[in-house]
């Protein structure tokens, strides 16, 4: 089980980096009947765009949405890194048979639920935009998958650690 925890921690850390930088959402605008006109007059409006979590956070910050970008930065970048640090620490402690469920370890378990917040927001966005007229296309990119799997693996590692410590 210790090996599985180590693999989960390693994969989760690597996937976190991938998830933050790879495109998380791709949008191809559609204008229904006016599509040919828009493509001719303002081709930049119809251009395919993709965003990663990092680019979403930086765009929000540049556009003046400081609270939202700060919130996303804390829960998508800082918190997952801190959480992985705590889990890695616990891994090392278990190897040395010195593991004690610390306050920060318990706190990561509680706050871990909020890590999936951005994935949930993306899912809602996809559902909402798919219902809009115009034939625009929106797709979840590999960044969202990588981020989601990273969060899942960190939760798995943590629950295995709790099980192991009992």
């Amino acid at each position, binding site marked *: 089980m210790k090996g599985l925890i180590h693999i989960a*921690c*390693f994969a989760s*850390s*690597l*996937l*976190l*980096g*991938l*998830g*933050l*930088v*790879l*495109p998380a959402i791709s949008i191809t605008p559609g204008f229904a*009947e*006016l*599509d*040919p*006109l828009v*493509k*001719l*007059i303002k081709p930049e409006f119809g251009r395919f765009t993709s965003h*990663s979590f990092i680019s979403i956070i930086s765009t929000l910050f540049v556009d003046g949405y400081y609270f939202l970008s700060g919130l996303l930065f804390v829960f998508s970048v800082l918190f997952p*890194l801190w959480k*992985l*640090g*705590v889990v*890695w*620490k616990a*891994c*090392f402690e278990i190897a040395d048979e010195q593991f004690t469920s610390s306050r920060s370890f318990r706190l990561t378990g509680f706050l871990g639920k909020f890590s999936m917040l951005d994935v949930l927001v993306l899912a809602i966005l996809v559902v909402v935009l798919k219902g809009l007229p115009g034939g625009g296309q929106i797709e979840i990119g590999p*960044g969202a998958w*990588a981020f989601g799997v990273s969060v899942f693996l960190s939760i798995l590692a943590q629950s295995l650690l709790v099980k192991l410590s009992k």
Partner: protein
Amino acid sequence: MAKFKKTLPLVLPILLAFAGASLAYVFNEKNSIKVSKETQPGLELGKDYYIQISLVELASKPEGKSTWDKLGSAPDIYVEIKWRENIIFKSSVKSDTLIGVWSQTELDLQSLAMGDTTISPDDLIKGARVSAVEGESIALQVYDYDPLGANDLAGSVELVFSSLNIGKNKLNDLSPGLRRVEILVSEVSEG
């Protein structure tokens, strides 16, 4: 050693996440190069396209003549697009200019006033609709409009579909009278 053991768990996720981010960055870079190469793709055979003239520049005087107009004024430029021996598009006339510029959409108010009350977005697009077929070409013929007599051919050029790209196509020094032509090629949206 104890200090190293204490800091390693905190540094490890950062290092691994950084490695993952670097991998993703390299992947994104490769992808973006591919996208920029694809911004001016060639025409796909069998598909329909709009061919639009956005700019025509004529020489300061026509071949074999001293002036475009008897009164010394600049030419009145219009363009015809021919495909499969048929004139499929005729532009509006741009008066007294050596550089004619056309917008991609025009609304014919006269036909609207005459009772043609329905108009679709397709009707606004001022261009020729063609189907890209291998080996086929379109001919652009630029004229100096003469309301009293025959229109003078200022220059012409034949373009094979395989030589055109989606987006803006700039062509220079095509014939003695024709200095510059800019053609806009765009895909016809399906459905």
